[in-house]
């Protein structure tokens, strides 16, 4: 792809990004409006007097027309104002900035586990298509997908954490080994502080929740890798590679997996968002601070602004991940490049 076409593609893709974000915001706005009950009352809190509620109503512009409210909502968002939590009395955005690194750490490690186990298993099953190995891996994948995350989390916490004492059962770090907060990521901060004890402590807190979170997602990865590899391996270029004398390993990776990058990366992109959903349950069970446990608390306290704000934040994250996935595919698959070149020059 030539630089000018690439620029045009990026321009188009950014325009799409803006539209998507606008779509997410609008969906969220409609969600708020669809909520029965008085928003002003909710924002002012249950103990507020009618007069106080009126003040809040005017401050939030809830007495205006819906279009004006929509525009005002967009305006507030542009200033990073996601509202104030009625539970923590803090701006939702601030709370999230505080908490989201924990979740990103969890989802990040879960994704690593997910891919390092799921991709090889999928490749293995595809390489042994229609054999006992293939069948077992397929069934194992379906089984992984059928495990309820929250239940698995509880069982793993009890058996591996409590009974075996192999890993800590809750939180993000042991009391007393905390390191000064810089990035918010415990692992990164402990490395920045040069504190290896703190680092391994943080990892120990992370590994079990991440593994539990990864398991149901592995199910999809295995199945998609297996499926697209089987398709890829049926192609003639695979036979051609074997006819050249290539090793089976080379054939699998260079002519199978290499060709399966597009569907697999699409799935991975979607999974980032879904994993944030799974984190809701895992963080609750393991009492980890983060996006998920904040969300459950918000639900428990009917903290509308917090919940809405978080739906929005996930939407934004997912949208940017989608962009990243598209760029990966653009780099990895000339067919995608061709398609985009055609579109850009059309």
């Amino acid at each position, binding site marked *: 792809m030539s630089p000018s076409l690439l620029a045009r593609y990026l321009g188009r893709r950014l325009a799409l990004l803006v539209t998507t974000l606008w779509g997410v915001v609008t969906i969220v706005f409609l969600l708020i409006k669809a909520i029965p009950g008085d928003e002003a009352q909710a924002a002012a809190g249950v103990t507020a007097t009618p007069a106080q509620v009126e003040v809040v109503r005017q401050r939030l512009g809830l007495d205006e027309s819906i279009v004006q409210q929509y525009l005002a909502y967009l305006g507030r968002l542009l200033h990073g104002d996601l509202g104030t939590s009625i539970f923590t009395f803090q701006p939702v955005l601030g709370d999230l900035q505080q908490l989201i690194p924990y979740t990103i750490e969890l989802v990040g490690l879960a994704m690593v586990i997910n891919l390092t186990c799921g991709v090889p298993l999928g490749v293995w099953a595809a390489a042994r298509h229609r054999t006992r190995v293939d069948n077992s891996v397929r069934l194992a994948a379906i089984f992984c997908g059928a495990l309820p995350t929250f239940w698995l989390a509880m069982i793993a916490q009890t058996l591996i954490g409590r009974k075996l004492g192999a890993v800590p059962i809750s939180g993000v770090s042991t009391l007393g080994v905390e390191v000064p907060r810089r990035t918010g990521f415990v692992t990164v901060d402990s490395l920045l502080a040069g504190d290896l004890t703190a680092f391994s402590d943080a990892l120990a807190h992370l590994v079990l929740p991440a593994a539990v979170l990864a398991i149901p997602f592995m199910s999809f990865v295995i199945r998609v890798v297996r499926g697209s590899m089987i398709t890829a391996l049926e192609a003639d270029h695979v*036979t*051609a590679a074997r*006819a*050249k004398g290539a*090793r089976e390993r080379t054939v699998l990776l*260079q002519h199978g997996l290499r060709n399966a990058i597009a569907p697999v990366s699409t799935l991975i992109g979607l999974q980032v968002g879904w994993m944030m959903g799974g984190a809701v349950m895992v963080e609750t069970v393991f009492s980890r601070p983060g996006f998920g446990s904040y969300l459950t608390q918000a639900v428990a306290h009917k903290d509308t602004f917090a919940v809405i704000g978080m739906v929005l934040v996930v939407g934004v994250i997912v949208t940017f991940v989608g962009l990243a996935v598209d760029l990966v595919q653009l780099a990895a698959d*000339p067919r995608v490049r061709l398609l985009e070149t055609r579109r850009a020059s059309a």
Partner: protein
Amino acid sequence: MSRTKGLDIVSLNTEVPVPAPGERVTPRPVLEVSDLRVSYPTVAGPVEIVSGFDLTVAKGERVALVGESGSGKSVTARALLRLDHRATVSGRILLDGTDLLTLSGAEMRARRGRRIGLMLQDPMTTLNPVRTIGSQVMEALRVHGVGRAEARRRSVETLDMLGIPDAARRMRSYPHEFSGGMRQRVCLAMAIVAHPDLLIADEPTTALDVRVQEQVLSLIDSLVDEIGMGVVLITHDLGLVAGFADRVSVMYAGRGVERGPVRELYRTPRHPYTAGLLASVPRVDRDGALAPIAGSPAQPASRPGGCAFHPRCARAESDCATVLPEPRRIGAADVACHHPLTAAEEGPR
């Protein structure tokens, strides 16, 4: 063709072919295939697709393997390199005297590409769409331990020789940026870049227009002269064969029915199937209407007993339906037929 009789065939094979007048003297064989049997598992049990097939290719020799669609030509080609792990292959495949069927996986792999090059049937799908042309041609050398720089140099050289303009730059292109004819050349390059002793080209020209067809064939032709490799050209186009091959082997329903020097076979086909095939090809030296063979080709799964061709054969007698004809030497050809045409009879009509 029974197992015990297989021995005769082998001895028949190793016999040095009698050079017909004007025929070039063929040196010792690179490839000797005898009693090749290939079966595939299907839902209805294993089906023997290739059922006792013989083939000999000498160094520098061009052998054409012809047969109707579905006769098992591609299956044979893949079986010769033991490419399909689902297939059960038996018989003997001697490459320079070594039986490929006795080799380990690694030994076999060392010979693929390096000793036998295979050019697959469809140039549109033989190239991996997500990898560059260069990496795919180079792969044929890299997997045999050739260094990156050396592999690149030889790949460019080969592509250049095959008439790809600006080969060094085109190495970075992707298959979709190439036309059909160009892809065909790339496929050929992949098959020959490691200078194999034997090239098996599976219908290298079907997808191409006549002009490119001729170009590709003459490329292969010049390679035979340049690097002295043997060639098996698989095709169902007898017209193509006449100008290219030294010898022809005719396949019907997974069995060889006739093989011999090309001129001999064209002038006096012995097997009624060969005669029928020739009659259905337009020829400059003969007028008259084209006569396609009546009936439809036998399917390997439901191959008729005896001579598989007998339901479509005008010369069939009662023994054709029951006794499988063994190949016999008639003149310079080996013919598997109970009632072959004699030289006096006018063959193709």
